[in-house]
């Protein structure tokens, strides 16, 4: 132990100051100058009011909006101050029960759909904040949303077409639709 205590303490203190304070503060400083919007959370505003983040999903359940993924956060869905998945195993009866309920609700609200329900509409996301659904899940809801808004189905459908984000460089990730953005675009359509 001789001559080890002093280096251990001084080195630890030095490393703490540099990596625990200097480094995060420097990254914050540079980020605020170069990428201020991203650093603050990619927030979206309507007028002066912050109405969401383009990266964080919101819960939609009314007939006039596209619905996102089920969210397992507590106490309310899409709780962005307490992210969480369901963590239910594949054979857990609680998972099967939850999916059954969701499927029932989807079928009740889309009585005319003959195709299978897109799986992402009945399974909870990992973060509980997933902002996206698959293109299939968006198309599945087009007629319902159009009918509830007395809008032309082709217009709503073309809005979905335009909302699809393709895999980055055609390689990374899957095609997807940002639900909050799509719904804001829907609202903008009416004005």
């Amino acid at each position, binding site marked *: 132990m001789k001559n*080890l205590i002093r*280096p*251990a303490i001084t*080195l*630890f203190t*030095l490393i703490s100051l540099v*990596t*625990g304070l200097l*480094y*995060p503060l420097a*990254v914050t400083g*540079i*980020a*605020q100058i170069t*990428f201020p919007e*991203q*650093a*603050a*959370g990619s927030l979206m505003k309507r007028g002066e009011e*912050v*109405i969401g*983040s383009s*990266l964080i999903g*919101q*819960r939609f359940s009314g007939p006039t*909006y596209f619905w996102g993924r089920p969210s397992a956060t507590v*106490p*309310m869905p*899409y709780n962005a101050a*307490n*992210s*969480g*998945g*369901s*963590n*239910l*195993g*594949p*054979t*857990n009866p609680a*998972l*099967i029960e939850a*999916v059954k309920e969701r*499927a029932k609700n989807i079928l009740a609200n889309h009585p005319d759909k003959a195709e*299978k329900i*897109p799986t*992402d509409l*009945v*399974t*909870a*996301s*990992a*973060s509980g*904040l997933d*902002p996206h659904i*698959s293109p299939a899940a968006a198309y599945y809801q087009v007629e319902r949303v159009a009918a509830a808004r007395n809008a032309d189905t082709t217009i709503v459908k073309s809005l979905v077409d335009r909302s699809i984000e393709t895999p980055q460089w055609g*390689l*990374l*990730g*899957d095609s997807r639709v940002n639900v909050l953005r799509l719904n804001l675009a829907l609202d903008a359509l009416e004005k």
Partner: protein
Amino acid sequence: MNTSLWIQIGLFLIVLFIAAWPLGRYLANVFDEQLTRRFIWLEKFEYGFCRLIGTSPAEDMPWQRYATAIVLFNVIGVVVVYGLQRFQSELPFNPQSLGNVSSDSAFNTAISFVTNTNWQGYGGESTMSYLTQMLALTVQNFASGATGIAVVIALIRGFTRRNAAGIGNAWLDLSRSIFYVLLPLSFVFALFLVNQGVIQNFNAYQEVKLIEPLEYAAPKLDLNGQPLKDDQGNVTMGAIKTDKQSIAMGPVASQEAIKLIGTNGGGFFNTNSAHPFENPTPLTNFLEMISIFLIPAALCFAFGQMVGDQRQGWTILATMTVLFITLATVALWSESNSNPLITQLGADGSMGNLEGKEIRFGIISSALFATVTTAASCGAVNAMHDSFLPLGGLVPMGLMMLGEVVFGGVGAGLYGMLIFAILAVFLSGLMIGRTPEYLGKKIGVFEMKMVSIAILVVPLLVLGGTAIAVVTEAGKASMANPGAHGLSEVLYAFTSAGNNNGSAFAGLSANTPFYNILLAIAMWFGRFGVIIPVLAIAGKLAEKPKLAVTAGTLPTHGPLFVILLISTVLIFGALNYVPALALGPIIEHLQLFSH
């Protein structure tokens, strides 16, 4: 199996090797003094730095002293991380006024971050102040990564030095790891992450006005804030309407970068790299996977260069890569299947197992991430492993059970694999009747005893811990899923802790005194129960002369040795864990697909 899958794996490995090769050369130059020889001002700076902290660049530590230094440095880390959590409510950078962390949780987290495990019993955004995240957790992300690098460099010196008394200067190795390697890489990566949408601020949580108000059920509270109960003692629920969403903020990017580069894996938020603010795009996801493997792969090249034979480094890397591709394929295949219990309810069977996954990553990038994070001892997750199909969940567990040697943690993966390499030459030495030697060093009785300890201590912790948990009430009470999956949750927890991974089948309510303490024990001894024998081996090997290569020397490079090494790793992993796996994921798989 579609082509996109092979393109993804192929692209991943190509980008990885292209990035790791120059970094490996750089690492070798940092640690064998080339860098300070080339830049005299750097040497002068190091001299001053060493004087400041109370050592000398010339000090060469015997292995016992080196090990004491490493343990001492980490013990200080435990004390500081524990203390910061226990007093965070009185300290600055706490806009949400989060309270002090409970003693057992703080103890668990302190051990967890110091041992590079980053097991998290808590949810970040609802527990830790910004100061704790930075000054306690981010610091340990650097310090524990540096510890791993220092130990493997010391082991490599054991092979390269002849008749030497020491294996290097622990203080200098730790400092060089942080200031020349981890910090610059993290700085650049953090800024890139912000560019892509990862947040970096000190704001209070952002209030948002929802487009569509929502109603939810929550326990009714009395005037003291305690839940109201009805006559039967059940909590009464009431409907609450809100049009607000509160979005967690914080200095995320700076921690995110080192979380991956240092194979730590402790997320800023509860859901780790599944959270859109930690991993917003498929591109960040790809580069986060690359960052996890970057230093472990580069260290293989550095190893080759330092021992003066690049083939040795390539052989280790090839072994890791073969194991990785094999297990990644199983995970990707498993998760692209659908859960038959869900498809029979009317869900589309062609979309794969989406429970607990994010749409922007999809099946392939989620399963690949799970393989990468558990092959390396990272433990960051971008999907909930608990909701994987049984064989999909078996892959992460199996990769950890192999001892975190498939790339593994920074430093830890390579020294783990080198331990297996010593074992492999020992086994083949027995078969061909020759004294085992590796890289010109004779492997003696002492080294083999240390190898045995290093290899056996972790299975003992994993299986012993699991056994204790499943026979006690406190252990069983935390299982969230019934049946075989419940056992998988507990087995996963101890596997993850003992092997210093840190990912979880997160349904297990592990934030209880029972699990906090038992898992902390597994993490501590799983880390230092391996590090100390490794340093002992390094010390003993450094003392020995270097043997000349003869016709009778077993070549430790080339395909034959790769096969030998893979077999050694697999046999030990399988012998230790197959019975336990049979009772968990394998039974569950048979139950699920028997219909």
